[in-house]
């Protein structure tokens, strides 16, 4: 019996990208990612577009078929690619849910909000009759700050923030234990983001939820997460307690990521020294040998090109993968 609710080991996800036979090419979207999440905890996942953070979340729910790795949920194996063990997903879909990024695209425009939330209740047969179904829908809508009046309306009648609430209500409809929040606030206006973040926190407290919170906005992720993992080009480069990660980042990529964030405080912004990274993220179709970050890293040498840095616990609870942690700190 494992003590962690979620345990991911050596997760890999490749997507075919043309070519035949031995010339077949793959986009290595997720490469050897391992982490755990405890019950009631929030793990944040940050990184730039194309770093594999969304793919990690979706592969965990088996919205994509994993290429490799093992995922245990509350001690039971959900999938173990090496041993070819795949659990029946239906019971797990009740325990794990996802909130998508774009509240405009992720809701069926031809279904009422009540039906969007009710569909999950139907699939998992959570309501014995119509009254119970209706009551359940209303109680969930109220939980996310909507009311019974909204149940008969269509998504286009709602603002972005309200739509995201509907998306959250849909995820909550089956009373899950674990929710993958895939950039749930990126598409919202600044003044609405804080509302939604607070709601995520309240729901977690009331319902004992566990979150994987995926976003590219490190300030928001730091606010909501207990621990944060930083991804770059399909690999996890650093993982630590969220205050620790922001205050004392070890990996050169994390350092530059933090310094690149514009500070909403003019005096600090004028005083701060930015580490501006050269160049762009390499293509995941053709990633650099060795350390994926070496093409933009100021500390890179031959060893970085030759060997993939090992994922190790540098300090207690602070993991990183870099050959030169001593040199750059």
């Amino acid at each position, binding site marked *: 019996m494992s003590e962690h609710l979620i345990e991911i080991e050596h997760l890999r996800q490749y997507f075919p990208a043309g070519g035949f036979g031995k010339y077949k090419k793959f986009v290595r979207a997720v490469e050897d990612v391992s982490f755990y999440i405890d019950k009631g905890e929030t793990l944040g996942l940050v990184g730039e577009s194309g770093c594999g953070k969304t793919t990690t979340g979706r592969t965990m729910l088996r919205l994509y078929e994993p290429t490799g790795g093992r995922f245990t949920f509350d001690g039971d194996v959900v999938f173990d690619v090496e041993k070819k063990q795949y659990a029946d997903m239906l019971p797990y879909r009740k325990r794990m849910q996802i909130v998508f990024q774009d509240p405009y695209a992720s809701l069926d425009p031809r279904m009422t909000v009540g039906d969007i939330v009710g569909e999950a209740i139907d699939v998992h047969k959570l309501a014995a009759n119509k009254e119970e179904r209706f009551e359940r829908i209303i109680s969930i809508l109220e939980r996310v700050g909507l009311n019974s009046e909204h149940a008969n309306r269509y998504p286009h009648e709602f603002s972005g923030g309200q739509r995201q609430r509907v998306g959250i209500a849909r995820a909550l409809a089956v009373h899950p234990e674990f929710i993958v929040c895939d950039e749930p606030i990126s598409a919202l206006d600044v003044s609405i983001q*804080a509302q939604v973040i607070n709601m995520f926190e309240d729901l977690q407290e009331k319902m004992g939820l566990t979150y994987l919170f995926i976003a590219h906005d490190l300030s928001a992720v*730091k606010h909501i997460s207990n621990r944060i993992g930083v991804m770059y080009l399909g690999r996890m480069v650093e993982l630590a307690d969220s205050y620790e990660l922001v205050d004392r980042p070890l990996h050169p990529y994390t350092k530059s990521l933090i310094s690149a964030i514009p500070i909403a*405080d003019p005096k600090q912004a*004028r005083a701060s020294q930015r580490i501006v990274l050269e160049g762009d*993220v390499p293509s995941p179709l053709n990633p650099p040998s060795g350390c994926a970050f070496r093409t933009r890293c100021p500390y890179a040498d031959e060893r970085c090109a030759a060997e993939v840095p090992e994922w190790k616990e540098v300090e207690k609870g602070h993991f990183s993968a870099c050959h030169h942690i001593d040199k750059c700190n």
Partner: protein
Amino acid sequence: MAEYLVDIKNERLSFFTPAGEVKALNDVSIRLKEGEVLGIVGESGSGKSVTAYSLMGLTAHPGKLLGGELQFNGHEIETMSEKEMRKIRGNEISIIFQDPMTSLNPVYTIGNQITEVIRLHTDKDGAQAKARARELLELVGINEPDKRLKQYPHELSGGMRQRVMIAIALACEPKLLIADEPTTALDVTIQAQILELMMELKDKLGMAIIMITHDLGVVASMCERIAVMYAGRIVEYGTTDDIFYNPKHQYTKGLIRSIPRLDTKEHERLIPIEGTPVDLLNPPAGCPFAPRCDAAMKICLREMPPETSFGDVHYTKCWLSQKEEFEKGASHE
């Protein structure tokens, strides 16, 4: 010579949609000197882009300018014909858009798209224009410019495309560059590169910049002046320090309070602005922010607040400030 490069006075602009009149801009005034950087912040639909586009004469149908004066570099924009506008656009004012993926033409090479602007506005011949294009690519920090000139937009990354957009915008050394959310579609590390580049170019070429964004972090590091817009009005205007350290309008205060900060030492609950953004089809009678404002008074719901000034630059439109200033004045007497 006019004192200001840009002088917009009491601009009113509406979109006449089938659902009714959308008052996109109400009484908007903006002044900008040469070489200044102004940030316009606000939520989607607050009118920040519409203000900037109208200055370029790019108000899209069914939008209509209803009143106000728009002066730019001695030109009266509101009275100019499309033909006259075309001489100014891309020459004296340039714009870079949010999405570099869709604002470049996919079927023309980068070189083609840059030389087009140069040949349109100057009397350079083909070879000279090409040389200038190459120079511009170097200016915006693109390596191997000769190779890039022959490439198509899809062959470049997002950051590179935005650099190309900047190169096109700077082709004729404009006096004013409008940057409409230039980094929103980019990753943070690339955003840092582009912002750095824009500041460098500003110092080198001495142009003024209007920076439209919803990211308070971006304006804090780049701008000298900030206009905060809400529901088609400028609710507060001031220097960057005024806005961040001495905000007067409840919306500005709420906005600054609601963003999560990176430098907190312990968990603090965010203080959001409650409610939803205004429906511009049915705006409230008084102050548009009143329904969401926690300090709203009776008068806020009835009448639009007048301007309250604090010093030369800083002003806000809020009844609460009016009241405070009035009481201050009364206690002095």
